[in-house]
């Protein structure tokens, strides 16, 4: 067996001491500095050292550190998944109550200048592109709100020409009239641009790094601004600095070794939570769906491993929101309730104008759970949880009343 080198011992110590880690986070300018400290090579070594006792210790601790987190992500944890799940359930119920918040995604535009090999909106894909004009956006808003949805997530591809910041601002203003909370999932912006979006009425930002492994990242993002790994990596932090109330991050699971991707996702959330204590930092666990014909998922994540990631995150970050979308099957979504998830999408469409069927557009990926909002509502009640449609109101925030 390889013996631990200086670097590796340093990482061990770094992980085991949550206080020191927190202090080191506070003096960093960017999450990239933390990533650099946890070199992937060394991480592999630490993984290889984990044994079953480490897993048991993690389960029995009140608060886990980063090393315990790694243990929960290791193959040794599979055997103990039932006790880990029981603990995750208890922590989730205590912190969030017996409730699941619901939201719906709305695609505004599928114009995109990025070439991401796994994505349906890849600029090399020859598809008719669409963008909702303001009138169509309003129709779409009315349609989604008529289903009872009160929280909305607005999405676009990356195109400063077709969906510039001003366009998104206007759409936020339109949707704000119909919804209690508006979030965005668009290309990364500058801090001052996020401030403009917030001023227009948005309060949440979702942006996935997609792939934390820098080498793998390069192989998936061939062209376009998204090639810039660090610019995307720093986007959630810019959102926090701009004053977003909720910031949601994630790795697109299936593109690289999930254990390491989950490790860095958790660490990224920990980083943001410590630097911006007033921001509600959440994590999404999107498993990649087949979106493009000739793209095969290189590192598939099983249901078991998805549960392993979700429960490990819950133990590391008891207060973090965890998001499961309609990418997942109906039955699985039902079974995940109680294990850590706090937010779910419902009645989704990944097509531009997909709710009002205004346009003949293509989906970014195929959704799996096609249940209606009402069916999701019933399903959550059946599981003994309360579906919460409204957990914020954008009129609660503002200058004076």
């Amino acid at each position, binding site marked *: 067996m390889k013996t631990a080198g200086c670097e590796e011992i340093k990482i061990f110590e770094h992980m085991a001491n949550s206080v020191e880690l927190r202090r080191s986070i506070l003096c960093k300018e960017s999450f990239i500095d933390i990533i650099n400290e946890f070199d992937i090579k060394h991480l592999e070594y630490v993984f290889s050292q984990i044994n079953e006792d480490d897993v048991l210790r993690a389960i029995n601790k009140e608060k886990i550190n980063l090393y315990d987190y790694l243990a929960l992500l290791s193959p040794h944890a599979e055997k103990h998944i039932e006790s880990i799940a029981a603990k995750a359930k208890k922590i989730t119920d205590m912190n969030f*109550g*017996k*409730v699941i918040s619901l939201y719906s995604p709305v695609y505004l535009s599928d114009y995109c200048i990025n070439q991401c090999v796994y994505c349906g909106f890849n600029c090399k894909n020859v598809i008719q592109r669409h963008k909702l004009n303001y009138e169509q956006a309003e129709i779409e808003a009315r349609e989604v709100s008529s289903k009872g949805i009160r929280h909305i997530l607005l999405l676009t591809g990356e195109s400063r020409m077709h969906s510039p910041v001003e366009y998104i601002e206007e759409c936020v203003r339109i949707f704000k009239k119909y919804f209690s909370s508006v979030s965005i999932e668009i290309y990364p912006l500058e801090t001052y641009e996020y401030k403009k979006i917030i001023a227009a009425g948005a309060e949440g930002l979702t942006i996935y790094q997609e792939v934390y492994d820098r080498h793998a990242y390069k192989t998936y993002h061939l062209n376009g601004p998204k090639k810039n790994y660090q610019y995307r990596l720093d986007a959630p932090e810019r959102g926090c600095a701009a004053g977003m109330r909720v910031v949601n991050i994630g790795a697109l699971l299936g593109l690289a070794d999930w254990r390491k991707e989950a490790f860095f996702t958790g660490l990224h959330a920990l980083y943001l939570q410590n630097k911006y*204590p007033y921001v509600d930092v959440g994590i999404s666990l999107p498993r990649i769906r087949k979106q493009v014909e000739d793209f095969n998922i290189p590192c598939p994540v099983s249901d078991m491993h998805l549960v392993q990631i979700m429960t490990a995150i819950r133990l590391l970050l008891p*207060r973090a929101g965890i998001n499961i979308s309609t990418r997942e099957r109906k039955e699985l979504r039902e079974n995940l309730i109680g294990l850590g998830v706090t937010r779910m999408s419902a009645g989704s469409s990944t097509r531009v104008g997909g709710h009002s069927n205004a346009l003949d557009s293509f989906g970014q990926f195929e959704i799996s759970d096609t249940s209606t909002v009402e069916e999701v509502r019933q399903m959550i009640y059946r599981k003994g949880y309360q579906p919460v449609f409204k957990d914020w109101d954008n009129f609660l925030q503002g200058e004076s009343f």
Partner: protein
Amino acid sequence: MKNDVLVIGGKEIKSRLFIGTGKFSNNRLIPEAVKRSGAQVVTVALRRVDISSKQENMLDFIPEGCIIMPNTSGAANAGEAVRIARIARHLGCGNWVKIEIISDAKYLMPDNYETIKATEILAKEGFVVLPYVNPDLMDARRLRDAGAAAVMPLGAPIGTNKGLKTKELVQILIEEMDIPVIVDAGLGKPSHAAECMEIGADAVLVNTAIAVSEDPVAMAEAFSLAVKAGRMAYVAGMAQEKIFAEASSPLTGFLSKNE
């Protein structure tokens, strides 16, 4: 026990158990839980209230006769809390408000400084203000001077069910304050609530421990009984705890012998 009444904002409050509503698996459990607990003061997060919804308007689940105490959950500073309180009153939720200002998403610790600022403004506007705070004596005095109707120190961080971890500090508030002290947050079981009442807290507010229980309605009643027992013990005057048994006086016995 006959004259043992709790008065807040000029109102006589029959039950010393206040109840939160945010974590129930189904809002339909709330009326029954409130009824069985005997609670008269019920707190509701305004962020969850959806006046427009026919199915899920939280306020419809609060039994008549209860005092609705809207809370400012989601407010990160005094300005937001003030805004939420004013909106709540505008929506017809009455003039009680629980100020909850949290700018720490990790532990959900209340911000005493911002809470004092909001209390000052809202008390002047005629609100009955019940601020949720860290148990600090100086801040509690500032809150009283600002016009707070009661002070609500945390027993342990929200949702932890750890019990009265802040006992020493809460006890100081109880001894020193001339407005009611209501322990809010962190109480995980009826015995925790009883403990608060035994040391002289005026009331307790419970949400998680009831709502997340397997049988929230029964748990609501269990808390109610514990609160009553604890209060009765406090009023009756509890025997002092003794560290040693006192059968004889080996150290000072000679004093009486020599007389």
